[in-house]
């Protein structure tokens, strides 16, 4: 009995080892044949969360070289970690927003979204004042000579940065997670493009790269973050990151700075003196689809 068992397990081990070795050998050969060392490195790259500092450094260097070749200009990729004692929150004043869509295009510019086909991380919904917040009859494609349109109000929707994010739970490969400072991010290299997260998100906040990403070298934003606005890949899912490349440097997100009516507010929820805490403590605040228990950190409020 014991002899049989030993033989059996050895055989199994041999078979497995053989298959493993041959698979690695063939894929290595294929990669070596069609690409350079960097292609192999990219193929073997680990999940961002499990990389050592040195490995991250190597990846960043490889990406910067690759982007420089592709776009003919220097593009910096940061991997700056979360600042200590920060947990970001966002607030949007529904009583102020006039639906001008300036945030939509400032976001595209800042975050290098592909425009073939078009992708917008922010979607401004027009709703009737009489009906209140009603997604069934909301209009994303409104086009008026001037806004705000009479009898209507506007509700911009983007990633709600949930504390209980269904997208993260649904990812089969752990390519998306919440960072220490509360931003839900995606490792575009680890993402397999299954789009489970897109189905799971109740806010339509995740977007898929249907085509090869081609950005205009003239307009590309060269200040990027690995988990943020660096150029993405065909087949990867992406989303709003509160402009991780800006906020980890202490700056406001691009949409906050561009809003002509000052409806967008951002800050550190752990800082009792922050703007965001003032809003939560003094204004009437609501979150979208509260009943789903996603616990957004994106709050809507009435400033008046």
């Amino acid at each position: 009995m014991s002899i049989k068992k030993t033989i059996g397990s050895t055989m199994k081990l041999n078979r497995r080892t053989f298959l493993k070795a041959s698979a690695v050998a063939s894929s290595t050969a294929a990669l070596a044949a069609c690409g350079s060392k960097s292609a192999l490195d990219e193929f073997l790259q680990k999940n961002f969360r499990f990389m050592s500092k040195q490995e991250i450094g190597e990846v960043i260097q490889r990406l910067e070289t690759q982007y420089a070749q592709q776009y003919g200009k220097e593009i910096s990729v940061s991997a700056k970690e979360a600042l200590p004692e920060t947990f970001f929150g966002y607030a949007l004043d529904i009583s102020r927003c006039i639906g001008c869509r300036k945030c939509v295009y400032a976001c595209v510019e800042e975050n290098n979204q592909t425009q073939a086909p078009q992708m917008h991380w922010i979607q401004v919904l027009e709703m009737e004042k009489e009906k209140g917040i009603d997604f069934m009859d909301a209009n994303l494609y409104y086009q008026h000579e001037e806004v705000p349109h009479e009898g209507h109000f506007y509700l911009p929707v983007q990633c709600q940065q949930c504390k209980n994010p269904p997208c993260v739970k649904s990812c089969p490969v752990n390519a998306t997670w919440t960072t220490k400072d509360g931003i839900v991010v995606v490792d575009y290299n680890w993402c397999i493009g299954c789009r489970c997260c897109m189905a799971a998100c109740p806010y339509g906040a995740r977007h898929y790269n249907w085509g090869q990403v081609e950005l205009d070298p003239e307009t590309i934003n060269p200040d990027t973050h690995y988990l943020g606005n660096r150029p993405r890949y065909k087949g990867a899912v992406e989303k709003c990151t509160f402009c991780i490349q800006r906020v980890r440097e202490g700056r406001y997100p691009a949409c906050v700075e561009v809003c002509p009516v000052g409806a967008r507010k951002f800050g550190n929820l752990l800082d009792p003196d922050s703007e965001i805490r003032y809003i939560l403590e003094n204004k009437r605040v609501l979150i979208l689809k509260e009943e789903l228990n996603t616990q957004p950190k994106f709050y809507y409020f009435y400033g008046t």
Partner: protein
Amino acid sequence: MKKLRLALGILAAWSVAVLLGPGLLTSGLTPSSIHTPPQTAADAQHEIAVPPPPFSEDIYPCSACHADMEVNLERRELEDFHDDITLEHDEENRWCMDCHDAENRDILHSASGEPIAFEESYKLCGQCHGPKLRDWRAGIHGRRTGEWNGRKDYLLCAHCHNPHAPRFKSMKPEPAPEKPGKIK
């Protein structure tokens, strides 16, 4: 015996929570620390650094023209100059001299006659719009640029609202997104 110990434990935990709970809350978060807007050194002196006021071109200092003119305090329709200004700001009850100073044209004045520089015009606006001034100081009303954890750039009320007709003007929206049918 075990049950008794458990019950005693729960009782002890409950009493600790009840006795210490309110104390913990009040010691850490007093109402003033919750509701006070950010106080910077500049804010404490009621001075907020703002960009220069948005004067029309070549119009300031006002005294350049007004110095030699006779002061006419009669409420009237302006004809020779400034006739491009239409007052749509409680115009039934107010006119120019309620905010502009007749003696010194280069400043404004409060309802009680205190002089207010154009650079601090928010103090003038805040006389009527108190809650807005409070929110503006806290960074809630109006646009902020700069750093969420550091230097913030403020704007004066007059940078966004025309003080003579403060209602926010409607504007042309950016183009609508493409409908999904266009994706090939």
